[in-house]
């Protein structure tokens, strides 16, 4: 018995082959990257020349780098798309750290954190006009490479979108590692701060800063 294949036109054949090959190669690469960077507890282990840490695989993540001459700022942003929660790690090199501290006259981690809080509050208040800042908690966190100073704040009516106003709960932390500044910044807008803090704890527990 002869099997009859439907006769397809050449452009359609090319199209089908292209779609299938691109989809297959994409999925193979995704699978290999996932299996080689997945930890036992189902998190993704992210490694660069500067830092390494793990984070939940269902959070969206991206990295960025600003370079200006010998100064650079390397950052990683991790976002939960369901709850508008955001965690950011920003790593300055020595030149960039020196410039920030001299420009804004900052002496230590405590002042840096306070400066960032002030900057965030002023930015939010400019757009909403009714923001009220509350300091919730401050102290130090012990990390594998040093002690970070942190401050947790709550800003009432921080954002207004239409008729809905959002409250902002955020944590600002900073640590100086041999004249290099690491800033940790996280916030939540939809009242899921406990979940955000749990994820932040996973990141901080696994965070390693490499020697230059």
């Amino acid at each position, binding site marked *: 018995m002869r099997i009859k294949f439907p*006769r397809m*036109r*050449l*452009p*359609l054949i*090319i*199209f089908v082959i*292209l*779609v*299938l*090959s*691109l*989809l297959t*190669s*994409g*999925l*193979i*690469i*995704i699978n290999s*990257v*996932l299996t080689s*960077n997945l930890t036992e507890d189902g998190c*993704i282990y*992210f490694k660069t020349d500067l830092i390494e840490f793990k*984070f*939940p*695989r*269902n*959070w*969206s*993540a*991206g*990295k960025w780098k600003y370079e200006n001459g010998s100064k650079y700022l390397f950052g*990683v942003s*991790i976002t939960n*798309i369901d709850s508008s929660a955001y965690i950011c790690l920003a790593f300055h090199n020595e030149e960039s750290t020196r410039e920030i501290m001299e420009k804004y006259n900052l002496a230590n981690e405590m002042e840096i954190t306070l400066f960032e809080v002030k900057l965030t509050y002023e930015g939010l208040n400019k757009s909403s006009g009714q923001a009220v800042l509350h300091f919730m908690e401050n102290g130090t966190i012990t990390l594998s490479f040093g002690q970070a100073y942190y401050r947790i704040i709550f800003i009432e009516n921080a954002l207004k979108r239409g008729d809905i106003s959002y409250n902002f709960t955020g944590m600002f932390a900073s640590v100086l590692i041999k004249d290099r500044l690491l800033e940790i910044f996280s916030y939540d807008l939809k009242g899921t701060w406990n979940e955000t803090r749990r994820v932040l704890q996973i990141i901080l527990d696994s965070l390693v800063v490499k020697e230059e």
Partner: protein
Amino acid sequence: MEFGRILNLIIGGAICLFIFLILEEAIRQFFISSNILGILIFDEARLAYNLIKIGCAYLPAGFLGGLFVGYRDKENLKIILLFPSIIGFIFWAILNYFFGYWGFIPVDYLNMVIMPLFSLTAGAYLGGYTVNWPTERKPKEERVSLIFKE
């Protein structure tokens, strides 16, 4: 150019845009539901995501736009099939500029301009020529029976 032909091109461009938006969101939802959104922090995974996007969003969107234009218009295919992808891309860029994030971030020409435009155009040509591809038709077989008389 006649108004009817221009209208066909605009409809082709709109088809490109809508199919692309639907398929791009479907790919994103696949990544979200599979709990692998975080993997996109790696450059290799981002490349793979772009390959999937070309294969499953840009090419099919261009293909369907081209299919429509090729079905409605049979003349000068080489030239007219350029337009649905360009029109679709312009609509998409406008949408992104006003309702997306294009106004806030620096433009990545490779991923945001060249790749979508090229893939949409390739898809449109494949779609347009699929409808107008010359196919040979076999003549009907005729049975001839010979009767030999003794």
